[in-house]
């Protein structure tokens, strides 16, 4: 019996169509993945299933949850269906929980909402403890009294899953449940979702952009593009033999370890960046602890680690934005003076907030020239246009502002700005993390081409080991502010020495169901 049945769903906002004729069923005990890039309409489907779309949405088609017609349900019927017949897990566990209420209140409320005789929240305490223990929250009774901000991201997501299953629904709608989590935590959450399916027989509609996650956990996959399903298949079949061109394109865009051959690295006697024994403290807590790292001319060095490992702090030391408590920062063999900054470019993670919203693309790219050089206006115009070509942006965008561009376009502008003075060193902090895979692939291509043209050395920060393997020749692994391992990618990412590097590698899901099953066996062994 299916717990979710959607037929010919069409959702539009005014003239913009978000979902276009989508049909999907989820049976008990089945995990169905809805995969697509941003704007493909995948979240809209989950919200529509619970009648949670805003009033401005125009909805057509039929949606049946646990045999009940969602679109014809009254307000009270909908309320009863939400949580009892289908629970929902969201992407951002921090904002998805109310910051002013305890975990107990929020879990108890999920039970209480479906109790025919609702009692006071504390009446449900024992059940709350059971639920938190079920989703693997340690010290569950202690956690009940805590507020969301006192929990780590992984624990918050577990609490949200506890809320989703509190009223024993037959269906879980999970909208990017692991996207904001570190890979090792992601693996634990996926294990939990799998375990809930295995023991409670819950059906799951998993919405994700991550093909590795799909390969890891899904039974069946629907590939979405611009609101339309372009391909539907069993997971093994889809990865083994993708029929639609878009599916193939998506799969090809996912960087994989070992795709890029690494040449023997020459010994370098000069450096463009040398960090020696760097230590940084915030309020007496060491966030970077004795890290030494160098980047040679023209060399790409990857810096990987999970959140809180000190990657960004280290980059800020290199940029002179953070003064380390101990150790030395050498840029181009000396201190980071105003003159040296001219040879230093930087790209940030979030392209939306790292562009000045009041400046046009042309002004943004030209700004370093205005600050550091005495080039004429005509010369600047020429140079900006050259760079627009180099990052493959049409000249028509020159007068646009940041909010008028897509994420990929913004990051290209960021890249153009970073290299406009022909830097010798580029600091790139998660430059593609906020982008879709196909956009990421294109931006990485641009970065490689710029590298060939300008020959800069680069400190490339990322949490994605496959991306680092693709663009870097050397890699350093950070954990809790300490360097656990560094060396050529060919060694560190393929025959790692340190157990943490091995754990990281095993935790990053690969877009290949068979390989993923083997890795799981290895990880649990």
């Amino acid at each position, binding site marked *: 019996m299916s717990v979710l049945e959607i037929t010919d769903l069409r959702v539009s906002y005014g003239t913009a169509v978000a979902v276009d004729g989508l049909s999907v069923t989820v049976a008990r005990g089945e995990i169905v993945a809805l995969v697509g890039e941003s704007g493909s309409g995948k979240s809209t489907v989950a919200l529509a299933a*619970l009648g*949670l779309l805003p009033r401005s949405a125009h909805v057509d088609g039929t949606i049946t949850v646990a045999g009940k017609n969602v679109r014809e349900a009254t*307000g009270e019927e909908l*309320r*009863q*269906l*939400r*949580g*009892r017949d289908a*629970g*929902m897990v*969201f992407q*951002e566990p921090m*904002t*998805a*929980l*109310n*910051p*002013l*209420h305890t975990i107990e209140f929020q879990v108890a*409320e*999920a039970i209480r*909402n*479906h109790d025919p005789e609702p009692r006071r929240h504390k009446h449900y305490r024992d059940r709350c403890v059971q639920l938190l223990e079920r989703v693997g929250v340690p010290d569950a009774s202690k956690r009940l009294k*805590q*507020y969301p*901000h*006192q*929990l*780590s991201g992984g624990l918050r997501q577990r609490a*949200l899953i506890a*809320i*989703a299953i*509190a*009223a024993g629904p037959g269906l879980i709608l999970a909208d990017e449940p692991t996207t904001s989590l570190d890979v090792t935590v992601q693996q634990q959450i996926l294990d939990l979702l799998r375990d809930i399916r295995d023991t409670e027989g819950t059906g799951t509609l998993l919405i994700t952009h991550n093909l590795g996650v799909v390969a890891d956990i899904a039974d069946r996959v629907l590939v979405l593009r611009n609101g339309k399903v372009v391909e539907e298949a069993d997971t093994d079949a889809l990865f083994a033999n993708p029929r639609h061109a878009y599916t193939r394109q998506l799969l090809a865009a996912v960087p994989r370890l070992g795709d890029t051959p690494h040449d023997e690295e020459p010994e370098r006697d000069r450096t463009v960046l040398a960090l020696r024994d760097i230590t940084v403290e915030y309020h007496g*807590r060491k966030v970077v602890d004795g890290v030494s790292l160098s980047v040679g001319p023209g060399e790409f060095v990857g810096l990987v680690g999970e*959140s*809180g490992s000190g990657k960004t702090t280290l980059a800020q030391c290199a940029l002179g934005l953070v003064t380390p408590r101990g150790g030395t920062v050498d840029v181009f063999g000396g201190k980071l003076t105003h003159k040296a900054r001219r040879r230093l470019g930087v790209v940030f993670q979030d392209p939306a907030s790292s562009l000045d919203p009041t400046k046009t693309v042309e002004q943004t790219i030209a700004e370093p020239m205005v600050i550091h050089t005495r080039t004429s206006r005509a010369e600047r115009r020429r140079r900006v246009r050259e760079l627009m070509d180099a990052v493959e942006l049409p000249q028509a965008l020159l007068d646009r502002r940041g909010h008028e561009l897509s994420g990929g376009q913004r990051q290209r502008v960021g890249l153009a700005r970073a290299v406009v003075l022909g830097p010798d060193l580029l600091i790139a902090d998660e430059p593609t993390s906020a982008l879709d895979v196909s956009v990421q692939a294109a931006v990485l291509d641009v970065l490689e081409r710029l590298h060939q043209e300008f020959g800069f050395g680069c400190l490339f920060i990322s949490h994605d080991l496959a991306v680092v393997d693709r663009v870097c020749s050397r890699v350093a692994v950070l954990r809790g502010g300490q360097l656990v391992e560094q060396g050529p990618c060919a060694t560190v990412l393929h025959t790692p020495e340190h157990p943490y590097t091995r754990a990281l590698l095993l935790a990053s899901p690969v877009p290949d169901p068979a390989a993923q099953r083997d890795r799981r066996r290895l990880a649990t062994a």
Partner: protein
Amino acid sequence: MTRFLARRLLLALIVVFLVTVVTFVILHLLPGGPARGVLGVKATQAQIDAFNRAEGFDQSIPLQYWDYLVRLVHGDLGTSYTLNTDVSTLLGERLPKTLLLTATSTLLGILVALPLGVWQAVRRGRASDVVTTGLAFVLYATPVFFLSLVLIILFAQVLPIFPAQAAQGDDIASLLSQPASLVLPVLAGTGVTAVAYSRYMRSSTVDNLAEDYVRTARAKGTPERTILWRHVWPNSLTSVVSMIGYSVPVVFSGSLVVESMFNYPGVGLLFWTAARNADFPVLLGVVLVIAVTTVLGSLLADVVQLLIDPRVRVPGVKS
């Protein structure tokens, strides 16, 4: 929490001290000084010199300030030049009346504004919201003196229901014995605060209704009423509460105008007269009172914030 309060109190003391320094210096830098204003245009230079010597104006400003501070610490705010009364006695008579006026109108303002803001936010974009928003902006754009005039014309002249002037008398009992005379000044004061607070409450509620946690609450089957009052309401209050706490100076300056419009015998009217007569001791006294209430207002807001928001109260997870 005790440490937090102790630190805030210390900070409050420093702020009040700095306010006295700044007002004292600015007042005493005024050319001519208060002598001419107090003694009149016909005063001879000898009389002026005598006045300045008696009041210590012939000394350096730091020395004068030191004298002022020593007297202040002993509870002596000086004597009014024009009214020949202790400033502390004057403030003792006037302050309760002003507090009655500002507290009542602020409280009424909050009582009207918060529910109104929530109501507008829930009905956002519908006719009822558009109409009340339009009216709110008209009221927002109306200066207090004009609003007072309109109230006087409407309710004291066209429909003579309430008196146009507040009851006169030395103590607060005289005001309370004629409550009808309080209605118009309080209404004018309420108009000042209610509109501003309701706008803040509306936008804060609108923002919170769009938050992820509201979606979570809905997705687990929480009734809309519960979502609004147990989830959205406290979250919306967190930002509005501090805004209300910090609005004490605005309320006071509103009251200055209201008091002079309705001849309400409060601190505002006292300040008004003192400012025209260069009555330094009174001016300093009133500014001190306003500084203390402002600091207390923001302190109170911080405490309320502390009580509703666990993120301020309980340290978070170390990432």
